[in-house]
């Protein structure tokens, strides 16, 4: 029949569509494997000298489910988080010189959680090619938008995560200190990814940090804080004897 051909052509379109979609779904994934290093480490503390800047409270009334979480402890900005003893939290201390141990093995898959319309942790340290999970514990959609330097090896991405959807598996292919992360839906949400090639530690509420599994040697440590920038310090790690380091940032 001479008229059958156009009809078949119509049928072909959805088939082509389906095939096209299937092709789009082929996702390649890399895995990280390296030999476990051993040895000592560096412990230390990060302090803030001076009066910490005022952290403005965040009014989340437009997102009631988040506002409810912060009912008793109002959420504030987290540019400078200072603990009781002047310890400075959310500082990433990493080895900027002297590391010769090759690729670092991640101990467990880090999680970058969104809870109460804030990022937990506020600063996430990861090593290059380390897979980390982005999860959403809120009752609202979030939008994760890390903004690496344009033109660099790390590419900006921007994905939404409705409540209840599976974690996003992400990875940074190159070193970068630091990548600002924002949520497009909630403008106040702000966090950082610090991507390093070497062992690192992130300071806790008291300002103390710990870098483990360092072979003996001379190292240069760099501490990065989102408001105050970086400081460096040289340390020597002897066999079986962890080194200590103290960083002090000056409040402006």
């Amino acid at each position: 029949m001479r008229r059958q051909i156009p009809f078949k052509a119509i049928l072909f379109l959805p088939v082509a569509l389906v095939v096209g979609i299937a092709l789009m779904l082929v996702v390649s994934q890399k895995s990280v494997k390296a030999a476990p290093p051993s040895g000592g480490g560096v412990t230390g503390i990060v302090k803030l000298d001076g009066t910490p800047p005022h952290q403005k409270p965040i009014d989340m009334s437009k997102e009631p489910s988040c506002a409810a979480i912060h009912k008793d402890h109002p959420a504030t900005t987290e540019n400078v988080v200072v603990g009781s003893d002047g310890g400075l939290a959310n500082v990433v201390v990493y080895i900027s010189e002297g590391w010769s141990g090759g690729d670092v093995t991640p101990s467990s898959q880090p999680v970058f959680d969104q809870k109460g319309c804030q990022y937990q942790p506020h600063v996430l340290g990861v090593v290059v090619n380390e897979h980390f999970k982005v999860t959403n514990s809120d009752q609202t959609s979030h939008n994760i938008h890390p903004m690496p330097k344009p033109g660099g090896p790390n590419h900006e991405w921007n994905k939404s995560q409705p409540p209840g959807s599976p974690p996003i598996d992400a990875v940074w292919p190159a070193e970068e200190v630091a990548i600002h992360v924002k949520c497009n839906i909630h403008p106040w949400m702000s966090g950082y990814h610090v991507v390093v090639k070497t062992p690192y530690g992130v300071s806790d509420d008291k300002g103390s940090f710990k870098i483990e599994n360092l072979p003996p040697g001379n190292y240069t440590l760099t501490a990065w804080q989102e408001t105050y920038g970086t400081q460096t310090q040289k340390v020597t790690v002897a066999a079986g004897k962890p080194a200590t380091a103290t960083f002090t940032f000056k409040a402006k």
Partner: protein
Amino acid sequence: MHDTSSHAVAHHGPPASFIRKHIFSLDHKVIGKQYFGLAFVAVLVGIFLSWLMRLHLGWTNLAIPGLHLLSSNGAPGNLMTPEYYLQLMTMHATIMVFFVLTTAPFAAFGNYFLPIQVGAEDMPFPRFNMMSFWITFLGFIALMSSFFVGDGPTLGGWTQYAPLSAIGQAAGPGEGTGVVLWAISITLFCIGQLLGSLNFITTTLDMRTRGMSLMRMPLSVWAWFITSVMGLTAFAVLMPACILLILDHVAGTSFFVPSNLVINDQLLPHSGGSTLLWQHLFWFFGHPEVYIAIVPGMGIVSHVLITSMRRPLLSHRVMIYSMGALAVLSYMVYGHHMFVSGMNPVSSIAFSFPTLIITIPATIIVLLWLGSLYGSRLRINTASLFALGFISMFISGGVSGFFLAQPSIDILLHGTYFVVGHFHMVMGVAAMFGIFAGTFFWFPKMFGRMMNETLGRIHFWLTFVGTYTIFMPFHYIGLAGNIRRYQAFTPDYMQQFIPVHKFITVAALLTGAAQLIFVYNLIHSRFWGKPAPDNPWEATSLEWSTPSTPPPWNNFGDKMPVVYHDPYQYGVEGSTGDYVMQNSPERIETVRDEA
């Protein structure tokens, strides 16, 4: 070769090869069918997208099985993300407005029947006509391909307001490559329709057969002619606007992007552009565009209805003048889309009056249909049911225009579901009813087979009741302040609308499913339908006087028709019954215009 050797017909001989016959055909009938096929594919995609959107609006946290197959970023864990909803919405609107409501009633039926109805052998520029379709097709491909680029199609709505659409990825997912593809697609579409309009206008002016005076052209021809004049002016404005948008997006110019925009805490490099400029350019096209979608429907419905009523309209001329008035006024009213957009408030009033006045020709058109129905001998079939349904829909959608024409009421209704209900009824569903009426009416001529009448009626009933069930509630919740283009209803006062949305979703799914009856009917009848006689509806216009059904490649064989009568000579005492065909030389007592 001689000075006067120019000839209006026979620009091409019968097609020889398969490709020339079915793919790169110069035959206006094949091109019309290609447009019909394009619109058919597009409408299926559009309905599918609306299903996904409706499911999400009814049950926001519902995981739609398999959705992640369409877009892994847009639907992680089968849950629709906010941007994916808006992307689906934008694509639904763009596909429906451009590739369905413009292509089907105007480009598809117009291409097929305009030359036949004026007694021409073909369009005067068949190569342009072929290009017109294939450029439009490329535009459709460009639009669909945006589903497969990095961050998916654009989410900016079919209006693509700058600067959201012009600043690129910075504005969020769905504002990257998708916008460029959208703008390319619309630019191509404009070029395609400009070429089409060129052919339509020239055919109507120059290619009429002997005796086919302007006033003897059927109303469908008049509607297509008026539409193509509108298209020529409207698409010629949208095209450069889209190109400027692409430049802003890609080349860093600042036509539409003002200074000092801060996104993600970063100052954008643009400066000095005017965001209202885009709105003016867009709506100067955008408002005539809705008439481009509906006027062919009016022509088709008049044509079908007159045949079913067995009498001409009370006045052929008044109908033509009213459609012409709609076209002229449509350029003066576009500002009513921008009442609260920061335009000078004086111009709001200036735009309000023509908008209100445009209801007068629209009312005259409706009254002409109603008045002509009086005392007619109405034959009920699927085509006439859809034509009557069109009138009902057009009335329902039209009265809400009184509200939206007034800037003071627009304060309450701008950007609400009231607007969504209004345009879905008046230009969406009504135009679709026009397409359905045209399909049932002309299918026998296009494919040589009758469509199944029983299935047609079942489809009509489900669609008629279903569309009212979907779109009437839109008006109610719009009145109460439900904002459109929301993927979920977070404001406290909108919680009360969620049950209504659930109801609408169920209605929309059922009505959408009812369209499968039409799909089945179309495909089944295409191959296995009853063979059609040459003039199944006992109609008078020239398309029913072709020597074969479907018509031969040159429409009328070796003998061009000569026209002796006004187009709709029904209710007369002719030798064949109560009608006399336009090209029948017999003497009759003619029906006269009553204006």
